């Protein structure tokens, strides 16, 4: 018998369990989040006898006789202080790390009520946040410390108008851990599901024997490929990804699922899986695109190993190279990158009558609607997808990971089934950022005017297509950057291998191609003898000029403004690097792309209904502000509902930095309708009425015959400057971002800070080594930046968009990560003269 106190109450148990499971499963204390269960992410931080500790590395026996505190044990005053402080400073994005941050903060402040920045960073070093870049969390801690002393929690009211930094509406629940993520939910009679993963990246599955597993007393069912009632091969775009590998089929990567188990007990899942016998014939995996392209290479998919080829050609590069004064040519390599969102994938499927309902936390409920309907062969009317809070995504939750498996298990058992990935599975299963090999040549005249750009990009798209096609396309369309270059030739190829699949990841291919193109500019500037700032300013596009993809830069184009905004800081420091970027808002290139939003009046409040996923980027608050601004109501009059296929219209995936613009504009249009109807009326008189808004971005397809096709409805622009000290440590980053119009400036800053820190990780510390297709990293070894690693970050927001679309807002989500790595590369080039061409950069302060 173990006895301990939890939030002041005596708890007794016979079981020697992992403490995180005991707290979450037995006591329903779900503020303690399970981010890694490896003791490295800090999301499960609790206080044990006054010290911050991780619940996942403790057991009920080890805390025998001790006193445990979680947020549930806070006084109302403390909860209010933390809520106010974290919301006010913008310290909450996806919110999954937040309760852990709060606990570490409490442990610190109880010991040291007035910590300085260094002490705060040290105390929070064990808590990983992938969204915020930590800057605002540190501010929040300082505000907490001050309010705990003064007790003066301001009673603030907001207008909700555009441009006001109102605290995020979802922050309050996230801070005290009462915001439900899927894994926090338990349904009566719920079963637990888990997939058996392939032992080898590439192997012939000869036989799967499930008989022993079925004998296990807790086993409810074991499903294999033959139990899939509909299309076994599904996928976001290309239907090449089997939900389960069949007997007689070859596995394509180590995350492939061979069988699905449902158990009455979560703890028995592993045991049951171990009872499944698989007869494999191990085969040599293909782990490099060049091997996959060999004529005699085994075909990973029936159509061969090439997923996609892209070519963009304008002018005549070869001719231009002949006439150029300076030409630089380099080969660049970029690695796979893990998203490391804090919340591992989780889904629950269950029947409401004859409707199969799925709780999910991904990037677009209509993607799940489409893919699961295909998989099960049931009509969409018999399905409902509801999104719960999403603990970060960054592109890594666009594909099916657990939703389809939970659905299949519920379909067969007719019982609620939860499937949650362990961190290890998450790292193994979901698509990564593409590793790319890039040959890149840039040429200019005597004065530094770029006259030609050529690139050849080969991306390793791993086992399945995922978003590999569009990622390659964006890598190509954006490779030449925000410059006017008359001659451009970009060729790209996405190749299947037996590595984990690669797909969407913040920056969507442009992080990779911009690293190559921008690094080339650093070398070119040195050859010419002008500064890296000058070569960029000289070539940056102005409104009316032609972008490398042929599109005419629109009036809102503010790349030059971003360059001017950082100029003073750039000139002030010694070891500086600089890079620019452009990034589209919206899918573009002729792909149908629609934002939809419905406003429904319920109980005198305006309910905003749209399927657009809130992955921590702040869309909920953006939509609320658009309604407040347009209709002239107050924030308390507006309720933004969770995405739910029953109520919310399809607004596409949260991808391509599109939601603020697309769903924002749809919301504005719906709000205009409501405003008209409200003339001379009150909300009460409009009870239950609905107002609908839709916005479709019309663009021209790739390789359109038009001389100046419109590839995207909007582009954001940015310049970032990275400052190193003499040892090569990043001391400061100055980032100027053209986001058109900041609907909520503190949220935009949060995107910039978080994007930069992610970009610094990409540049310096993050890697995803594979051994014959098998990931070699745990969460703790990913190289994620922690609080003590971050530099000072100065965000500059450039607003120069008079468009009425979404009040002029353009996407900010992805572009923040793009210029960082080449800016660091440039700073190191200046510091030690070494021109580095692969990521993460070698021989730096961070990596020997």
């Amino acid at each position: 018998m173990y006895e301990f106190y939890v939030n002041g109450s005596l708890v007794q148990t016979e079981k020697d369990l992992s403490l995180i499971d005991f707290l979450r499963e037995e006591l329903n204390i779900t503020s303690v989040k399970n981010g890694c269960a490896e003791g490295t992410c800090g999301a499960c931080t609790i206080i044990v006898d006054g010290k911050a500790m991780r619940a996942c590395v403790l057991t009920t026996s080890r805390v025998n006789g001790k006193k445990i505190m979680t947020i549930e044990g806070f006084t109302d005053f403390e909860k209010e202080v933390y809520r106010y402080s974290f919301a006010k400073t913008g310290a909450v994005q996806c919110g999954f790390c937040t309760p852990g941050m709060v606990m570490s903060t409490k442990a610190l402040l109880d010991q040291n009520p007035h910590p300085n920045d260094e002490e705060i960073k040290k105390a929070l070093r064990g808590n990983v946040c992938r969204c915020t870049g930590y800057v605002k969390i540190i501010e929040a801690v300082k505000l907490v410390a001050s309010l705990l002393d003064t007790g003066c929690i301001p009673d603030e009211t907001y207008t909700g108008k555009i441009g006001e930094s109102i605290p995020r509406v979802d922050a309050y629940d996230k801070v005290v851990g009462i915001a439900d993520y899927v894994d926090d939910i338990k349904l009566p009679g719920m079963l637990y599901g888990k997939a058996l993963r392939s032992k080898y990246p590439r192997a012939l599955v000869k036989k799967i024997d499930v008989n022993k597993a079925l004998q296990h007393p807790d086993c409810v069912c074991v499903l294999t490929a033959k139990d899939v009632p509909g299309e076994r091969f599904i996928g976001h775009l290309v239907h090449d990804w089997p939900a389960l590998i069949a007997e007689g089929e070859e596995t394509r990567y180590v995350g492939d699922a061979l069988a699905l188990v449902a158990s009455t007990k979560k703890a028995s899942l592993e045991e049951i899986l171990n009872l499944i016998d698989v007869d494999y014939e191990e085969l040599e995996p293909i782990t490099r695109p060049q091997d996959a392209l060999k004529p005699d290479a085994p075909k990973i998919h029936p159509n061969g190993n090439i997923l996609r080829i892209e070519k963009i050609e304008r002018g005549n590069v070869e001719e231009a190279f002949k006439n150029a004064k300076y030409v630089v040519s380099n080969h660049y390599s970029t690695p796979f990158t893990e998203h490391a969102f804090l919340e591992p994938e989780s889904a629950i499927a269950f029947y409401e009558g004859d409707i199969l309902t799925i709780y999910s936390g991904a990037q677009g409920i209509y993607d799940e609607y489409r893919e699961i309907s295909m998989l099960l062969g049931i009509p969409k009317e018999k399905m409902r997808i509801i999104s719960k809070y999403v603990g970060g995504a960054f592109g890594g939750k666009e594909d099916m990971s657990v939703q389809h498996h939970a659905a299949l298990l519920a379909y067969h058992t007719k019982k609620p089934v939860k499937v949650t990935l362990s961190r290890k599975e998450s790292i193994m299963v979901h698509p990564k950022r593409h590793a790319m090999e890039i040959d890149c040549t840039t040429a200019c005249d005597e004065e530094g005017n770029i006259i030609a750009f050529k690139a050849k990009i080969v991306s390793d798209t791993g086992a399945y297509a995922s978003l590999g096609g569009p990622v390659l396309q964006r890598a190509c369309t954006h490779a030449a950057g925000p410059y006017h270059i008359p001659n451009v030739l970009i060729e790209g190829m996405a190749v299947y291998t037996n590595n984990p699949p690669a797909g969407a990841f913040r920056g969507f291919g442009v992080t990779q191609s911009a690293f190559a193109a921008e690094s080339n500019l650093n070398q070119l500037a040195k050859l010419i003898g002008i500064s890296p700032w000058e070569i960029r300013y000289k070539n940056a596009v102005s409104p009316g000029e032609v972008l490398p993809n042929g599109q005419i830069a629109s009036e809102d184009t503010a790349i030059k403004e971003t360059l001017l905004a950082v100029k003073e800081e750039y000139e002030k420091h010694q070891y500086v690097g600089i890079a620019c970027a452009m990034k589209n808002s919206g899918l573009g290139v002729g792909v149908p792309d629609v934002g939809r939003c419905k406003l429904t009046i319920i109980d005198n409040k305006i309910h905003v209904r749209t399927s657009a996923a809130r992955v921590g980027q702040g869309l909920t608050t953006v939509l609320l502000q658009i309604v407040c601004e347009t209709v002239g109501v107050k924030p308390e009059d507006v309720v933004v509902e969770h995405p739910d296929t029953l109520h919310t219209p399809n607004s596409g995936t949260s991808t391509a930095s599109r939601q603020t613009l697309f769903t924002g504009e749809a919301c504005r249009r719906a709000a205009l309708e409501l405003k008209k109807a409200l003339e001379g009326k009150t909300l009460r008189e409009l009870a239950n009425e609905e107002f609908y808004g839709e916005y479709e971005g019309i663009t021209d397809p790739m390789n359109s015959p038009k001389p100046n096709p419109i590839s995207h409805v909007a582009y954001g622009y940015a310049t970032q400057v990275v400052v190193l000290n003499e040892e090569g440590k990043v001391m400061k980053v100055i980032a100027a971002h053209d986001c058109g119009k900041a609907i909520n400036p503190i949220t935009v800053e949060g995107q910039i800070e978080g994007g930069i820190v992610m970009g610094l990780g990409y540049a310096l510390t993050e890697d995803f080594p594979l051994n014959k297709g098998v990931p070699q990293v745990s969460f703790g070894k990913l190289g994620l930046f922690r609080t003590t690693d971050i530099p000072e970050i100065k965000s500059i927001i450039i607003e120069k968009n008079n468009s009425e679309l979404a009040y002029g807002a353009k996407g900010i989500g992805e572009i923040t990560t793009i210029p960082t790595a080449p800016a660091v590369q440039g700073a190191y080039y200046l510091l030690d003269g070494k021109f580095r061409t692969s990521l993460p950069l070698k021989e730096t302060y961070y990596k020997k």
Partner: protein
Amino acid sequence: MESIIFHQPRYLGEAIQLLHETPNPALLAGGTDLIIDINKERKKVETVIDLSRIEVLKTITVNEIEIEIGSMVTFANLCENPIIKQEFFGLFLCAKHFAAPQIRNMATIGGNIINASAAADSVPVIMSLEGKFVFNSVEGERIICAVEYFSNYEKEKIKPHEVLTKIKLPRKGYLSGFYKLGKRNSLAIARINAAVSLKEKEGVVEKINIALGAVGRYPFRVTEIEKICVEKPLSYLESDEVLIGLETAVYESIKNRPTMPFKKEAVKGVYILALQSALGGELNG
């Protein structure tokens, strides 16, 4: 006895909010007076806010210009602090001779000040050391000199929604001393006490602050006498002029009280002993 609502806030801010929301709360700052008053039903209390768990009130922090003593610092804590012993010897002496050890472990400097007893030991010392009180409330921070606080007590006294959080003493390098005369040494409530802080240069007085306690409704400084001591040799401090001045001050303060004849004589000896403790170390037994 009726039931009492008891709050034990963990943070100062929480206490401030409680003070803001609660009508007529009693602040528990050690309890060596309050608990006795409640037990003997001398005081009717509905709500008690115990300050003992608020860490920031229990700390002593030092910077270059001043020392900040949290209001919940006990007299025992004061005795143990090396900077107080070195630079604020009068306060050290006051703490050392404050009541019995059991009381010293519980009684706090803030409680001693706020009870505002005429005989509060710490007040004359704080006055002589040019100390300031810091009060906090939902309206923010109020800082006031100890002398000003007591000379204008009805106006300046602690408000129902305020809490005394800190006592600030400037680090001016004063020699300081303290003596109290009680019926039975330190266990007793002082019948009369004196605190002296001074600065001298080559035997000449540059500055002196003399504060007297238990010779009036509240302790006070004898500024007229302080002024005439400046730029005089140290020996002048024990001169008849000074001693007669003190006698007069006490007479003026309590001329209608039966203890006046005794106290106007006693003040002279108490002052001399306080002065000597400042100049030469401890004299008290």
